[in-house]
């Protein structure tokens, strides 16, 4: 009798033990991936990837100088390469220490690779990312201070290394190749700047900060000159309006960035809002836009330049849609050519780019074969 009950309790204990552990194991996600990763040789892939990153950029202090304009598999990139040399864009991205890992990192991994040079501007230095510290505090009221200091920095250190100077937020997505098309009809010695044009508060309007705006070399020179002569000053913390008012005072023209069918290229919201959203009649947007608002598919140019309020996930999705996913063999409805003034632009092949290019020339040839 005693033997029977002890065997029974052993059996009971066995069942209880199995069931408890089973539930415990299913609660904690100890899935096959965990074991799979244990078996893989760690970091060999990661190592190659870090080396890849160093091949793309030459790091010069906080500036990331593009060594190789990214090429797509199987493409004919002659036009893109030519315009890359003739319309040099320095991109600066307004960010902050709290957003480096959350947002700026994804900008670095996506669209900023298509700029000729990119600099991440923050309130404090970070040599690892890298970012420049503009010696401001963080917060919405610091936006114009950051902008003023950023442009002064660029005028001081990089004035002759680019033709155009683009400002973007760390949640702005820019298609830099399409920006080059917009700018290709102008020369950098013209006092002009482009972006999503808004109507109020300035006679010629001003450009939305979040949608990104780009200054010509001459416009940058005049901006800095304006502060030197006290024509411009820190009038408000509303960065885009204040800059627009300074531009107006310094005789810099607010350009029309729309495509040849008069469709907008810079956009202050995400693609879904512009393509499918119906803005209510009382929404501020209707009164702010300089040009007539178009809802639905014709809101946006095929060769769109920017979108705003872009999350990390959407950055990669837009990079995939722009540079990777396509309909094979599809003949696009809209096919603009290069503008007439493009022929006037000189090519820039400075020694930095030349030496960088030679190093990766073999790699480039291998890729295109």
């Amino acid at each position: 009798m005693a033997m029977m009950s002890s065997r029974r309790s052993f059996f009971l204990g066995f069942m209880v033990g199995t069931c408890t552990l089973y539930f415990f194991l299913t609660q904690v996600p100890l899935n096959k991936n965990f074991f799979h990763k244990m078996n893989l040789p760690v970091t060999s892939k990661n190592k190659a990837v870090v080396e890849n990153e160093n091949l793309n950029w030459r790091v010069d202090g906080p500036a990331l100088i593009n060594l190789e304009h990214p090429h797509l598999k199987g493409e004919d990139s002659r036009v893109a390469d030519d315009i890359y040399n003739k319309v040099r864009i320095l991109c600066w991205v307004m960010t902050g220490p709290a957003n480096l890992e959350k947002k700026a990192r994804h900008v670095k991994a996506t669209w900023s690779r298509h700029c000729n040079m990119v600099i991440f501007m923050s309130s404090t230095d970070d040599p690892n990312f890298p970012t420049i510290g503009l010696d401001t505090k963080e917060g919405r009221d610091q936006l114009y201070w950051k902008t003023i200091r950023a442009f002064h920095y660029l005028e001081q250190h990089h004035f002759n290394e680019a033709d155009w100077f683009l400002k973007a937020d760390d949640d702005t997505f820019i298609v830099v190749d399409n920006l080059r098309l917009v700018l290709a009809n102008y020369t950098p010695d013209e006092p002009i700047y482009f972006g999503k044009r808004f109507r109020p508060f300035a006679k010629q309007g001003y450009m939305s900060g979040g949608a990104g705006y780009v200054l010509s070399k001459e416009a940058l020179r005049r901006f800095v000159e304006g502060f030197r002569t006290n024509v411009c000053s820190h009038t408000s913390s509303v960065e885009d309006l204040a800059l627009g008012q300074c531009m107006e005072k310094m005789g810099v023209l607010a350009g029309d960035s729309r495509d040849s069918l008069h469709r907008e290229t810079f956009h202050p919201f995400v693609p879904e809002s512009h393509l499918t959203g119906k803005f209510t009649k009382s929404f501020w947007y209707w009164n702010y836009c300089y040009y007539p608002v178009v809802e639905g598919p014709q809101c946006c140019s095929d060769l769109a330049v920017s979108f705003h309020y872009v999350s990390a996930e959407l950055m990669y999705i837009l990079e995939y849609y722009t540079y990777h996913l396509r309909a094979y063999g599809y003949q696009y409805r809209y096919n603009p050519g290069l503008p007439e003034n493009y022929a006037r632009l000189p090519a820039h092949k400075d020694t930095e780019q030349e030496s960088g290019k030679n190093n990766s020339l073999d790699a480039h040839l291998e890729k295109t074969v």
Partner: protein
Amino acid sequence: MYSEGGSFMKGMLLGGIFCIVATLLSSFNFGHQQHTDHHNHHHVNAPSKEELLRLPEHKRIELSQNIRVYCVILVEPKELAYWAAVRETWSKHCDKAEFYSSEEVKVFESVSVETKDPWIMLRKALKHAFDNAKDHKWYFIARPTTFAIIENLKYLLLNKDPDQPFYLGHMVKSGDLEFIELSGGIVLSTEALKRLVGVLGDSSKCPEQGRMIWKLPEDKELAVCLKYTGVFAENAEDTEGKDIFNTKSVNTLINEAMAETPQEVAESCCSDVAVTFNGHSPNNMHVMMFGVYRLRPFGHKFHDSLVFLPPKDSDND
């Protein structure tokens, strides 16, 4: 009494150890099996540039004009928003797009199959498509939650003979059965559909109520019937071996790539010539039309060996 407690504890301990060992063993086995499965499945690739250039140009033009895809889209009235989105977006790129609904709906034109049973609905839709096909050689079956890029489908099928039995898409193995998941879209050649229609009337091989005691999902039932006629499922891949039929959305695939390959997310998440994605909202489908057919970087040209023209009466492509 003491010995009872002791044996209980011993039992518990042994039970726990048994459970851990069993889990470890099963996950190693599972991982191993998945790995070999990946190499053993049948797959079909999109043609490479070399293969295409081997054909003379007039032949390529002839082929790209003669590939005609008949889209069979199975809808239910409760999915009106998706139905509307599909109507306004990708289905315009099918040579013929026919919507098969469980019942007639006033708002949209459709062929009513008068049944809510998914397997019977699929059977009736395919029979109707076959009878009305005329010169369409390829059939693409989808639900309205799927987004399809028909040009990339045509590119995949360009050098395949529709008089051979083809049954393609995102292939999944379930026990012994290899089948194409409906959510990623199903492609049938004329020959495959002909064989299926031939066996639909045979209730020993392909009955309406299914062959199992319990109901199988309609995509598995289809695979079973096709297997009887000698038609087997094949996974479709691009020239690099990436799946081109996806049962997940771009968002999901991008998120997975952000976790697995954070330095090359857009490069590695999905194929450049993907045919389908699944799970996008109706609004997202409009964004995808813009993303696929319009948004692109200036100055980058592809000298593709085929040309597909934009369809009439369409404003987001």
